[in-house]
């Protein structure tokens, strides 16, 4: 999936995270900000990169500001930002690329 324009999803409320995606420069660059980066930074990155991979995103700048989100929330926000970027809001691959 090609990131065609910048898009944001999520909030800075507790248990949430805010994900920004924008067109990249040839690869996926992930920037993470989190109060629990030392304990969970690796896990958050892993979840975000796996989610991007499943969606077929290979070229994007991604920024995540984490406020203690669970894995399911990180996935949900990354997906929401990517699908907003490409403008798709229906006929989504639930249980396929979104899993």
């Amino acid at each position, binding site marked *: 999936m090609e990131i065609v324009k910048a898009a944001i999803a999520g909030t800075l409320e*507790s248990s949430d995270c805010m994900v920004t995606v924008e067109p990249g420069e040839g690869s996926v660059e992930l920037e993470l900000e989190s109060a629990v980066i030392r304990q969970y930074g690796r896990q958050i990155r892993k979840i975000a990169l796996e989610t991007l991979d499943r969606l077929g995103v290979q070229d994007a700048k991604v920024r995540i500001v984490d406020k203690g989100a669970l*894995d399911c929330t990180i996935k949900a926000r990354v997906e929401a930002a990517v699908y907003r970027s490409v403008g798709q*809001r229906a006929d*989504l691959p*639930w249980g396929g690329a979104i899993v």
Partner: protein
Amino acid sequence: MSHPNKKRLRRTMMFLNAQKPGLIKDPYIYKPDSIMLDLEDAVAEKEKDAARFSLFHALREIDYRGVERVVRVNGLDTDLWREDIRAAVAGGCDSIRIPKTETAKDVQMVADAVAEAEKEFGVEPGRVLIMAALESAKGVMHALEICESSDRLFGVALSGGDYTKDLQTTISGTGVELMGARQMMIIAARAAGVQCFDTVFTNLDDMEGFRKEVQTIKQMGFDGKSIINPRQISIVHEIYTPTPKEITFAEKVVREIDEKKALGIGVFTVDGKMIDIAFYDGAKRTIELAKASGVYKGEL
């Protein structure tokens, strides 16, 4: 065969905004009977898409520990509800709540979309149930046809805010403006053999008023109430828990009816009250409710 969850205990159904991770991550700790993950009114228009992703992953990954997961989809007058149903069914929800239901056709349209989604996502056919919220004069007037509209329908719920707007009045706290709708809905639900749920009580500073309202709707026959705050749960459950006196009486009724039936006696007295077979189902229900509430220690 009827769906095993159609008649499950639903004293409390707690509304939660599906778009708020902080709300949907652990509501089971408050032990409501059902949660209602909302994609409709609680979610801002520009967040409708994001809410579906949150919903899908919450349904897939959070263990709600036996609490029923109902999803309120957007209205049938929007272009959102079909995708809402796809996300909810693919996620593994237990039930779909239809807002602003006005006719049997509304329910059938949703039932068809649910069946399609079950097929698309490999969900056992007929697993996902439906409930209908009645929010207008027209919906209430069609209560019976709605209650009889689909095998998937387990119940109807009154949505008092929109209903009173449609009546051109307001919620007064006395319940007088909701009297007709409550009466019509519970009668229709019982005639059709489905459950009936009361509207939310929004004033969290008036817990005494809330308690009185729950006592009223329980007395009217309602199965439970929609709630908006965990503080309301224990009050509803307490009111719906049969008292020791009610349990003892119900046990006596069941035992006596079983015994007298074998002897060919139809009418008799228990604790000075005239009893016949018509009391049997009610007494059985009291015992089932006592069991579900965790207070039954008998052997029936």
